[in-house]
């Protein structure tokens, strides 16, 4: 109960700061649209190829938008000392971490709210509630892992380099399974009929649980001195 209260307070604080400062969201939205425009020209996408290439382009854009969003989660607060002030309370590092991951997931979800309609416009991608659900499901685990590595890399000088090096390999499962799930969702066939990877949504949910638990357990060791 107290864990949730702290996590929600920290998430609210981060989102409020972003809404007031408007530093990250407008830049991310621009990045997303520009990335789609570039992909459109680079792949010479037409209405036939568009839906086929969509899952790959979607994950490519999401991964890089995630790196930008998560990279700023801890670095600024660590430098200003406000992160330490929060950690020196009895709230616990895991609750503070959960709140920051929640806020980062919210930012990425906001980014997806721009990305998915833009994909429909630029690539002719069929966007359905199932596609949205798939992307949101992957966002949970990506945010947990991304924030963990962001917290780790924020302690180093080369954090801009370290975060991608740490996060990208571990995000591969999300890209593989998420790509497959989005492909299935966009094809319109029922998810239950898909093989393997069979039930990509279930596999994504399993990854979410695994990575959220791992991140929550590791957060204390990463954040606390």
């Amino acid at each position, binding site marked *: 109960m*107290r864990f949730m*209260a*702290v996590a929600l*307070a*920290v998430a609210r*604080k981060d989102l*409020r*700061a972003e809404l*007031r*400062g408007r530093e990250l969201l407008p830049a991310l939205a621009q990045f997303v649209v520009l990335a789609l425009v570039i992909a459109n020209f680079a792949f010479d996408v037409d209405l036939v190829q568009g839906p086929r290439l969509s899952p790959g382009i979607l994950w490519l854009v999401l991964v890089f938008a995630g790196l930008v969003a998560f990279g700023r989660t801890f670095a600024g607060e660590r430098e*200003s*000392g*406000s992160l*330490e*002030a*929060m950690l*020196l*309370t*009895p*709230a*616990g590092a895991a609750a*503070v971490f959960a709140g920051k991951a929640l806020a980062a997931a919210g930012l990425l979800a906001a980014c997806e709210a721009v990305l998915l309609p833009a994909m429909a416009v630029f690539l002719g991608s069929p966007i359905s509630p199932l596609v949205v659900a798939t992307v949101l499901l992957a966002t949970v685990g990506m945010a947990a892992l991304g924030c963990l590595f962001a917290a780790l890399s924020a302690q180093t000088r080369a954090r801009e380099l370290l975060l991608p090096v740490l996060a990208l390999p571990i995000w591969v499962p999300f890209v593989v399974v998420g790509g497959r799930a989005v492909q299935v969702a966009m094809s319109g066939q029922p998810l239950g009929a898909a093989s393997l990877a069979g039930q990509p949504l279930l596999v994504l949910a399993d990854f979410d649980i695994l990575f959220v638990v791992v991140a929550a357990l590791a957060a204390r060791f990463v954040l*606390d*001195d």
Partner: protein
Amino acid sequence: MSAILGRCLVQRFGRQVALGPLDLQLPVGGRLAVLGGNGAGKTTLLRLLATAARPARGTLELLGLDAGRQRDRLRARLGYVGHQAGLQPALTALENLELFATLHGVAAGEARAALALVRLVPLAGRRAEQLSRGQQQRLALARAVLHRPELLVLDEPDASLDAEGRGLLGELFEGRTVVMATHDAALARELCDRALLLKAGRDAGDPWALRVVGEGRQS
């Protein structure tokens, strides 16, 4: 009972010894001023006492609890203001304190009470980034006493404070054990009943680098 009991405390950064070895004892209700030049190890010592860092060697008991193993219980009973104010710049003064009320698990009403304590109620709705440096310092002090801690650890709390703000320090110290680092010997004499002079704390392994003056004990 001792509020602070440190035995053979040593802190290292890499191979460099930043502090110690140092023995330290402060009774409940005692007020200790930590004095010394730049780089003497004042902040290093205060960070150990605030549980923001673990000593490389030695044992530290605060308020009867092990500072390494019982940190969470301890943090509910101590307040710390470091070199940086550590505020949330985009939040208002009141929102800053309400956030910390939640983190400490105390009633939200305590936020307004703490704000009143440092005479910042008229600025409750102003963002922290819009406050002057002295007002930010007051807000940081309010945050440190919000949960009514028994032990206050303050790193140069007088920095940027005006005369009224410095006068507030005495009120905040009332009924508490206090350790504060300062460059102002007169203020230390006014507010504290003992002093620890740190000298060349960064000299590797020099046990005589640390000396207690005034009523304090040799360490």
